[in-house]
């Protein structure tokens, strides 16, 4: 029976045409038809309605636990100094401060919070982001159901197709360009191919990216440094410029991608054995930067994915290479989808699936003015300076915790710091030499 087949055939052709003309061509040439803009506006209106509905529902049912984006506890206690009974003297109640702090950290600690997804103040109609989903109203549930249908049966196939096209074009395109002899034409073509394919991939995620301060965009021979939330960061940044990626060579599909990419322009891929040798890594990066004509290197100094509410400590290795650092701040809008990759919970494939079934990815990218190592500054101080600049611009909390704490244990030096602080309060800076008195007053000075 040929009728059903011909209908399918026609449908498929329509599908392909739509795909090519409405989505891919504009993507490749970097202009937009405005469809995504309209989509986002509709989404925002729907989500606002949903939020109001939930708030009303919460008022009517007071036993519903409310989402807590700022965490569980109200930490309005004073600093260590304010809580101690009397300066220069030990009081039995001094221990209470540490006791309370300890209990607070048992209920909720600042570090673990950063490695799990941000809790939203309102619900964005994705069940995965709501711990406390409860039936509030029929209308809300219907809209949610509609949302599921649209996301999984309309958006997902579209996005998967686009992503596949984008990636295969990248492999094929870069391989072809790789055959050309070294010349400026080759570089230009390679940049074109890379940009085009990344743009298609970005459409494959329904990503709306706003770039700010484009005049500070990283230049050749520099090092681009950004905060890390997910593997998608690379696609986001590469939509607006070409970078030399740094990373480990993988096997399988990733490996194919990596090998073809390096044929058209020099990326820095390491063998697993090389990665362990810090000096070898640093040397290769330094060579890359020294040849000022090569593309800027893209590095994520946190070393791991953080949940986009804060910045963890930057590893100083990238800041010792020399060269100009171009900091970039990336902030995802959590209303449309949670971009954080919790590698302990999800593997790459399920993560990508989650990304492709979110509403959209809306992201702001700020290019910050370039920074260089200053006189008398060491790599750690430089790294912290860059980190504060990025945190300030992106509206992220600047934390001094090490991203490696995701997996490892706390060093004893932290405990010593606490002890040092406390001792300076009750004993004084270097501990006075008069035995017994240490500057204590005669009259027992208890708390007011």
């Amino acid at each position, binding site marked *: 029976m040929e009728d059903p087949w011909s209908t399918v055939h026609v449908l498929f052709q329509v599908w392909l045409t739509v795909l090519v003309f409405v989505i891919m061509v504009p993507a490749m040439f970097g202009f937009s038809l405005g469809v995504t803009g309209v989509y986002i506006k509709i989404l925002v209106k729907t989500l606002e309605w949903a939020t109001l509905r939930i708030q009303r529902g919460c008022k009517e049912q007071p*036993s*519903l*636990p*409310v989402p*807590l984006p*700022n965490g*569980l*506890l*109200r930490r*309005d*206690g004073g600093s260590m100094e304010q*809580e101690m009974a009397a300066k220069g003297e*030990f*009081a*039995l*109640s*001094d*221990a*209470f*401060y*540490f*006791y*309370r*702090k*300890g*209990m*607070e*950290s*048992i*209920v*909720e*600690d*600042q*570090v*673990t919070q950063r490695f799990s997804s941000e809790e939203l103040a309102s619900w964005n109609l994705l*069940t995965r982001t709501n*711990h*406390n*989903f*409860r*039936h509030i109203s029929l209308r809300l549930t219907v809209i949610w159901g509609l949302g599921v249908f649209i996301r999984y049966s309309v958006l997902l196939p579209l996005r998967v197709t686009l992503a596949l096209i984008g990636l295969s074009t990248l492999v094929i395109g870069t391989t072809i360009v790789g055959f050309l002899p070294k010349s400026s034409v080759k570089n230009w073509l390679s940049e074109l191919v890379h940009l085009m394919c990344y743009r298609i991939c970005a459409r494959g995620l329904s990503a709306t990216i706003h770039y700010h301060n484009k005049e500070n965009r990283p230049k050749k021979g520099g090092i681009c440094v950004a905060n890390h939330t997910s593997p998608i960061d690379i696609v986001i940044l590469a939509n607006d410029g070409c970078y030399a990626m740094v990373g480990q060579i993988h096997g399988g599909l990733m490996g194919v991608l990596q090998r073809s990419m390096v044929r058209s322009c020099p990326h820095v891929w390491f063998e697993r054995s090389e990665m362990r040798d810090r000096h070898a890594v640093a040397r290769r990066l330094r060579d890359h930067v020294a040849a000022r004509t090569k593309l800027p290197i893209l590095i994520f100094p946190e070393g791991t994915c953080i949940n986009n509410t804060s910045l963890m400590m930057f590893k100083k290795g990238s800041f010792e290479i020399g060269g100009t650092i171009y900091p970039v701040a990336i902030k995802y809008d959590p209303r449309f989808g949670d971009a954080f990759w919790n590698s302990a919970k999800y593997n790459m494939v399920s993560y990508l699936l989650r990304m492709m079934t979110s509403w959209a990815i809306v992201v702001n990218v700020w290019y910050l003015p370039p920074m260089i190592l200053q006189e008398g500054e060491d790599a750690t101080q430089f790294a912290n300076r860059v980190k504060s600049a990025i945190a300030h611009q992106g509206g992220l909390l600047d934390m001094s915790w090490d991203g490696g*704490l995701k997996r490892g*244990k*706390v060093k004893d030096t*932290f*405990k*010593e710091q*606490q*002890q040092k602080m*406390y*001792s*300076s309060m009750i*004993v004084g800076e270097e*501990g006075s030499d008069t*035995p*017994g008195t*240490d500057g204590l007053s005669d009259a027992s000075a*208890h*708390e*007011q």
Partner: protein
Amino acid sequence: MGSTNSTLSKIPNVEELMQETGFTPAHIVRLYDRFEALDKEGKGHLRPQDFGEIRELAMNPIGDRIIAAFFSPGQEIVDFHSFVKILAHFRPVEKKRPRDAGGPELVNSRTSKLKFVFQLYDQDKDGKISRRELLQVLRALLESQVTEEQLESVADRAIQEADTDQDQAISFEEFRKTLEKVNIDHKMSIRFLR
């Protein structure tokens, strides 16, 4: 879809727990989520090592003592009930609760909090804080920052000030008297948002 009710029904004897501790259902659910997060292997109970994973606790000078407070002597594990009951000591004091004459002492009353923190010092639970026990706490708080002589003089002075019956140790009554003017509710309470 995780709803409050379904989480609450997972917890055995949750009504009794709420009665004893005074936590609201929403708080119990939050604490249960936290308990499950700390119990990485899903055993249903926590061991001291699970607490040791909390970074902020590891850098607390008396972190080990705080962890020990959760485990009754001889016990190696703590279940959710005990976990919540210990944390209940840190609930803010309720001023509006009607006084039932003869009713059981609330777990978060001023006296209960004081008794709880007394045990922080009095590790052998003999009802008195001896000089040695006080020194141990001071050593934990100050460790290598001061000399042993300085530690001892601080301890001696603290005992001198509190010890009214001159037995070189601080009993619970003397402890309570010393801290008469201290705002225990402020210092020993954890405030939950909403």
